[in-house]
């Protein structure tokens, strides 16, 4: 996956990303985190950049995040989406811990998505944990962006 996928000059132009969602009261806020001992941060950075260019507000927490760090950041920042990037192979161990930690902090209404190297045979198990979608290597970034736009819960209730 090359940076050219990010779109022309980061302009967030409508032909690449689709129209901006003006109906929302605010930009979609996303936490992008890399759980565990996994130094592969290129995909997370590429995604964070693409989301910024799509008009999202991206809290980038970077490498080596424990489940508690991720949940605490998601809770304080009150994000709409938690994006996990994992290429270490530890997803079946870490994801349940992350989902538990989120629940413990009362973060029970966010969209959780993941990217990185998660083998096809693990997808069903990962999705059963509550991860809404997995975007593996080579996913066009607009696919992930569109999914997030469509599936991010609206939380405008009083």
């Amino acid at each position, binding site marked *: 996956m090359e940076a050219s996928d990010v779109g022309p000059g980061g302009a967030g132009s409508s032909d690449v990303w689709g129209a901006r969602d003006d109906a929302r009261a605010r930009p979609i806020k996303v936490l992008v985190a890399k759980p565990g001992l996994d130094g592969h941060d290129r995909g997370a950075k590429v995604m964070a950049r693409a989301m910024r260019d799509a008009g999202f507000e991206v*809290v980038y927490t970077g490498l080596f995040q424990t489940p508690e760090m991720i949940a605490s950041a998601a809770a304080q920042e009150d994000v709409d989406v938690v994006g996990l990037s994992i290429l270490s192979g530890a997803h079946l161990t870490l994801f349940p811990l992350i989902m538990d930690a989120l629940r413990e902090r009362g973060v029970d209404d966010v969209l959780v998505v993941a990217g990185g190297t998660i083998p096809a045979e693990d997808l069903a198990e990962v999705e059963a944990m509550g991860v809404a979608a997995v975007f593996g290597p080579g996913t066009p970034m607009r696919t992930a962006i569109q999914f997030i736009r469509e599936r991010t819960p609206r939380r*405008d209730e009083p």
Partner: protein
Amino acid sequence: MTDVSAGDGPVTDVPPPATPRQDLVDRLLAGDRRALARVLTRIENGDRVGAAASARLYAHGGRAHVVGVTGPPGAGKSTLVGALIGAYREQGRSVGVVAVDPSSPMSGGATLGDRIRMGAWHGDDQVFVRSMASRGHGGGVARATTDLVDALDAAGFNPVIVETVGAGQGEIDVAALTHTTLLVQVPGTGDAVQTLKAGGLEVGDILVVGKGDLPGAAGLEADLRGMLTLAEPDPPSRRAVPGQDAWPVRVIRVSAQTQEGVAELADAIDAHRAHLARSGEIVTRLRARAEATLLARLRALLEAQVAGTTADRRVADAVAAVAARTRTPDEALASVLTVLAERGAPWAGAAANNRSASFGRR
């Protein structure tokens, strides 16, 4: 909407909150951090719930010492805030942080990358860090930053620290919303002439030489001290209370990497607060803050009105004429004022009349 509990059976397994329908503001005041996070979102969005929450919280605020941290991009502001959090936690004090990073004028999106530098305080509910995007607001902070600070104050955090967008010689709004302003400078960005220029250096109550471990830090420290000796003891711009000594601006060299100077900086912030109280300058500052807050709200209203005019055909025509250089910007302004007046801004009508009178004479 994703049910994150899907893997572990029905949602009812999760113990319900004590009083599920309890008001967000009540929960915030009772120490519920999740409610605080929610309230901050609503305030940031400027919706009705947020405005109502701000109004209720205002009476609970005014206790926290509010510290602004400003300086150029990458100067080490966030890392320094992280170090200060550590110093305050050692003293048993809670800390709230609002960190602002810039929104893209093109996409409206933002990368909020301050939190990553502030260290890991998860599990410590006496530390609350909130990132926010500037959302097109100038001056180094977002429109709602002051309201978020007030909410953290009401929630009991003291001090509350505000980190601005990487800022330089112009973006000094943060000084109007804080009690103590730290201006972070780093070596290698200029020489003694830079220290003479107007802007950030004038609003700093404490001048921090950041990245004090890097070469050139001692030179910068000397330049800044030299600059301070050039000033009269009580320059009018420092707004000291008549008859009281002005705060002697301090220069402190800090390395967030070696922790050198961090404790001294925390002490200097306390000393500044004590000075404000002792000299009565706190009253002047609070009034200035109130005035800045009111003017900012007025400006926001006017800006919203002005932004609404660009949809009007006459304004679009005026824009085209200016682009084609068949009208000057000043001439085109008359069209905008006319539209504004029609949209219910009486002052715009008067301004339009004055302008056309003066242009008639040209």
